[in-house]
C-alpha cells in the first residue's frame, strides 16, 4: 500500500468528494491560489476553479455563516478556518446558529457543512495560534466533532464528514500534516462515531486524541521493554463518542489514562473519565489519570511550550504510576 501524508490525505478526500458531488465546494482565507496556509487545498483551484474553491475576506463569522446558509439551501460546503483559535471569532455562527438551527426549527432544516481547522502546539506559535479547543465544540449539542490522528483516518473521516447531513467540526493538527501513513488507493469511508484501537494491549487503557496518539504509541513501545502492555484507543470522533470501545477496554485492563493536548480543566479527558466512572467504576483498579497540557495559555518560548505540553515521558510516567 502506498504512503501519503496527512495533508495529502485530507486533500484527496476533498478532491474525491468534489468530483463525486457538485454541491461540495470550499471556502476560506487564502485557500485558492495560495493553497491554504498549511497547503491542504493546494492544486484544487486548478481542477475545480474559483466558483468551487473560494478565497474569502478575513471574516470568520461570514465564512461560517456563508457555509451554513449555503448548506441550508442544499449545498455541501467545506469551510477552512485557518487556526482553531480563530473559531472564537465565528463562535456565534457556529454555536448559536449552525448547531441549533435544526432543533430550533423543529427539525425542518439541515446544515451539512464541514468546518475544517487545525490546532495544536509544537511550533512556538504562542497563545493565539496553538490551542486545542475541541472541548468547546463537544460541549455544544448539534455539532459533530472529528479529530483524526493518521492520514488513513483523516481521509476516511473527511469523506464521511462531507457526506454527513449535520454540521461537522473537523480538527486537524499542524504537526501532523507532514506525517506519513498507509492510505489505500481505493475508495473508503470511516463512519463517524467509531473509535479505533491503535495498539491492542492488556495492562492499561490509554485513550489519546490527535497528535497525542503518536506520542502514546511511542511511549507504549518504550514501555513494552519494561513489560507493560498498553492498549491505545483513538476515539477519532469526539461527538459522537464511541463509549463502548473505551468501556470494553477499561473492563479488560482495569486502568485508564487519558491523554490530550488541550488544557486539563473541562477537557475531553474529564468527559471520558466521568463516563468511565459512571459506567465502569467497578472495573477500575486505580484512579483515572489525565495527561494534558497545563492550565496555562501556550507560551512562546520553546522550552516553556514543551514544559506545558504533554509528551512521551509524561505519558510513560502516568502509566508507570498506574501499573507499577
Amino acid at each position, binding site marked *: 500500500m502506498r504512503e501519503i501524508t496527512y495533508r495529502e490525505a485530507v486533500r484527496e478526500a476533498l478532491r474525491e468528494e468534489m468530483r463525486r458531488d457538485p454541491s461540495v465546494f470550499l471556502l476560506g482565507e487564502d485557500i485558492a491560489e495560495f493553497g491554504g496556509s498549511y497547503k491542504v487545498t493546494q492544486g484544487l483551484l486548478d481542477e475545480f476553479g474559483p466558483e468551487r474553491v473560494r478565497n474569502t475576506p478575513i471574516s470568520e463569522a461570514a465564512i461560517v*455563516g456563508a457555509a451554513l*446558509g449555503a448548506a441550508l439551501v442544499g449545498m455541501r460546503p467545506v469551510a477552512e478556518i485557518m487556526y482553531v483559535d480563530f473559531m472564537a471569532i465565528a463562535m456565534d455562527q457556529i454555536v448559536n*446558529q449552525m448547531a441549533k438551527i435544526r432543533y430550533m*426549527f423543529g427539525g425542518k432544516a439541515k446544515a451539512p457543512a464541514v468546518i475544517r481547522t487545525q490546532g495544536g502546539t509544537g511550533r512556538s506559535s504562542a497563545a493565539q495560534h496553538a490551542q486545542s479547543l475541541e472541548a468547546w465544540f463537544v460541549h455544544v449539542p448539534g455539532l459533530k466533532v472529528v479529530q483524526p490522528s493518521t492520514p488513513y483516518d483523516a481521509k476516511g473521516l473527511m469523506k464521511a464528514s462531507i457526506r454527513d447531513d449535520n454540521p461537522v467540526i473537523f480538527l486537524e493538527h499542524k504537526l501532523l500534516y507532514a506525517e506519513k501513513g498507509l492510505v489505500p488507493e481505493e475508495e473508503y469511508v470511516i463512519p463517524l462515531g467509531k473509535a479505533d484501537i491503535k495498539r491492542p494491549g492488556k495492562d492499561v487503557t490509554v485513550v489519546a486524541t490527535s497528535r497525542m496518539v503518536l506520542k502514546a504509541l511511542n511511549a507504549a513501545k518504550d514501555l513494552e521493554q519494561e513489560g507493560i502492555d498498553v492498549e491505545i484507543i483513538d476515539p477519532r470522533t469526539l461527538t459522537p463518542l464511541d463509549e463502548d470501545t473505551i468501556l470494553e477496554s477499561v473492563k479488560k485492563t482495569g486502568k485508564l489514562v487519558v491523554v490530550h493536548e488541550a488544557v486539563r480543566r473541562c477537557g475531553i479527558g474529564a468527559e471520558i473519565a466521568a463516563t468511565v466512572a459512571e459506567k465502569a467504576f467497578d472495573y477500575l483498579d486505580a484512579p483515572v489519570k489525565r495527561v494534558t497540557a497545563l492550565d496555562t495559555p501556550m507560551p512562546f518560548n520553546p522550552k516553556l511550550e514543551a514544559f506545558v505540553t504533554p509528551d512521551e515521558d509524561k505519558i510513560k510516567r502516568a502509566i508507570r504510576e498506574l501499573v507499577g
Partner: protein
Amino acid sequence: MAVSEIGKDKLLHMYRKMGEIRVFEETAADLFMKGRLPGFLHSSVGQEASSVGACAALRPEDYMTSTHRGHGDIIAKGATLDRMMAELFAKETGYCKGKGGSMHIADLDLGILGATGIVGAGLPYAVGAALGFKMKGTDQVVLSFFGDGGSNTGAFHEALNLAAVWDLPVIFLCHNNQYAETTPQRVHQKIKDVAVRAQAHGIPGVTVDGMDVLAVYETTKAAVERAKKGEGPTLIESKTYRFMGHFVGDPGVGIYRTREEVEEWRKRDPIPNFRKVLIEAGVATEAELNQIDQDVAKEMEEAIRFAEASPEPELEEALQDIFVES
C-alpha cells in the same frame, strides 16, 4: 409607483397582511400579559409597512431571515396565524413543534429561513443562502431583515462585504425603528442613515419611508430585480417606529423615550394611512376593507382556538431533531 401598476389583488393582500400582523402582535401581547404564554415577546407593532412592503416584493421561492422581533416579517412572508400562535403557546402544532418559540420561527417551505435571537446574526447565513442559490444557478434571492441595532455588529459588516465581493443575490433590509432595544439611534451610532454604510462596502444603499408600504415595496422590488440580474446586494434602510416597548411588558415610554415622541409617530400609523390610499385611489371601498378587517379578526380567533386545543409536545420530543439521523 402608482397603485394601478400593482393591481388590486396584491394591494389588498398587502393590506390584509398588515392587519394580520397588527392583530397578531396585539393579541400575543395581551395573552402574554395575562400570563398565558411562556418566555418573552418582542412586538413589531408599527413596523407592518416595512415587513409587508419588503416581503411583497419577494416570490414564494425567495427566502428571508428575520430577527427576535420577527413575527411581522414572518407573517408577511406567508406564515399563518394558527401555527404562529401555536408556537407561541409552545404547542406541538407550532412551526417549530414548540421547540423554537417566538424568536425562532421558521418554515423552509415558505422561504422562511428562520428568525434568530442573536442581533445581527441572520445576515451571514442569509449571505450563505444567496451564495447557494447563485451556485445552483437559480434566480432566487434572499432578503435579510435586521435593525438599526444590528447594523452595529461585526456580523453586519462581514456579511455586507462578503455579499458585495461575490455579487450575491441578497437584500439587506434594515428596519430602522430608531432604537437598539432601549438605546436611541443618536446614542448608538454617529450616522443618521444606516443606508450610508452601503458605501463602505461598494453597494447601493437606499433610505425609504418605512411607514409607507408602497414605498418599501417599490424600493425592495428594484433591489430584487438587481439581485436577480446578478448585479449584487442592496442595503435598504426602512425608517420606521416600534410603537411598543423593546419587549412586551416594557412600557416603552417614560424611561428612554417620551409619550409625545410615540404619539408623533403614531400619527403616521402605516395601516390607516394605507387604508386611506386604497380608498382615495379607488382600489377598494370602505366596506371591502372592513370585510378584510373582519376576516382577519376571525382568523385570529380561530388561530387562538387552534393553539389552545393543540397538544404540547411529548417529553421525548426534547431529544429529537438534534442531529439528522442517517
